[in-house]
């Protein structure tokens, strides 16, 4: 299948076109977020100082160099394991209109229903491929909540960010669910012959 291009922020219509297994490259603006950032927004009830409407969220704590007040340059930027942050999926869609969550390793099944309901997708990135990812980030344009360093809210401008694979789409499909189901069946078959 051809690689699709998508620019963020985007809208529900564009997201609904994507299907699990599609390959995507992203341009535009994406927002870096991590465990502590989510905890501040949802557990401590602090509204984020950046507009998350239509946003692409990247699970990251970037390696950066400070070059001036509120100004950072990239050093090495990669992606962390998403599953730790699954419980925030519904809130991100319902309260803030987030359209895409990107990370590594997938999200558990509890993300499927909120993504279907709110029109969101999960993009799987290649974990550990930080040298490549760093080249696709053109600039760190904004940072908020610097006191949470490095788990701040980051705004990156990106070009051809990816390849990203749609792991969970907005129609109830999850590659991770399918892989797990097949693997569990396979395990039963393996156990029977051990």
């Amino acid at each position, binding site marked *: 299948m051809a690689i699709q291009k998508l620019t963020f922020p985007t809208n529900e219509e564009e997201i609904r076109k994507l299907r699990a297994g599609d390959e995507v490259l992203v341009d535009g603006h994406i927002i870096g977020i991590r465990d502590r950032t989510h905890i501040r927004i949802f557990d401590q009830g602090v509204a984020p100082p950046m507009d998350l409407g239509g946003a692409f969220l990247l699970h990251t704590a970037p390696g950066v160099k400070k070059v001036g007040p509120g100004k950072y340059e990239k050093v090495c930027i990669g992606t962390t394991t998403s599953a730790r942050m699954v419980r925030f999926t519904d809130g991100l869609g319902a309260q803030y209109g987030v359209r895409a969550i990107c990370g590594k390793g997938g999200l558990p099944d509890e993300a499927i229903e909120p993504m279907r309901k709110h029109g969101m997708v999960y993009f799987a990135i290649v974990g550990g491929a930080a040298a490549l990812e760093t080249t696709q980030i053109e600039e760190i344009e904004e940072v908020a909540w610097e006191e949470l360093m490095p788990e701040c809210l980051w705004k990156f401008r990106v070009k051809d960010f990816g390849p990203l694979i749609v792991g969970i789409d907005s129609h109830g499909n999850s590659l991770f669910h399918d892989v797990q189901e097949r693997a569990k069946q396979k395990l039963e078959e*393996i156990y029977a012959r051990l």
Partner: protein
Amino acid sequence: MITTDLQGILEDAAAHLYVWALMDIPQDLRDALVDASERETSVPGRRVLSTILRNVQIADDQKNLVCQDTGIAVYTCRVGEHFPLHPTRIYAALKAGTERANWEFIPEWDGLDVKCVPKGSGSENMSFLKMCIPADGVKGIKQFVLESIVGAGGKPCPPGIVGVGIGGSADYAMYLAKEAIARPIGTKNPDPHVAKLEEELYALLNETGIGPMGLGGDVTVLQCHVEHADTHMTLNPVAVNYQCWAARRASAHITVDGVVDYDREA
């Protein structure tokens, strides 16, 4: 009288090993990743593996880290009985660039081997221990390894190296599992029974279809390594430790005269 500053030499070597391991992954791993990309048949799996190979090349070209997660620096030392530096000083030298050190003391030898294995959190979080009972036998061990790796899914950045530690105590089994992930790809356990178990587990793990980054495919693990120890008659501890596809490691051999031989393959 010894005038060579072995502590200073070791400190420099430890710092070098850590950065080197993070930037330049070993040849056996590069070969295993190329091999994986050639035999993978799933579409997302092939895309993940080609991206991994592209990333390794960019890290080489741009002198950047392969992965942003610099991990916990785990050092393993093999210390010769006649190597003239007290363990407290070896520890102090490693601590300058590290957080943890493991030891093995070698009689009738005057050298020191140091291996640095940066261990990322994504894979370290996928560590599992089960105190099987002896009656669970090898079948119980296999089942636990399989269910652990299936449960881990894409989280530890597959395809990587699965380390299995069998025997000892709960903590020692996990230590063995970590020794296992630090072995070069292509090495086998010297005990033929254990080497056979490594081969069997490798084949079974790749039957699960978890695939590169958990997106489904033929290559779930690059290798399975097993280390074992004697244990109590009522114990059968099994530990699983995962090392991601970047499987970073770097080694050095230091002589009594302070000559440092950096070893890319050990």
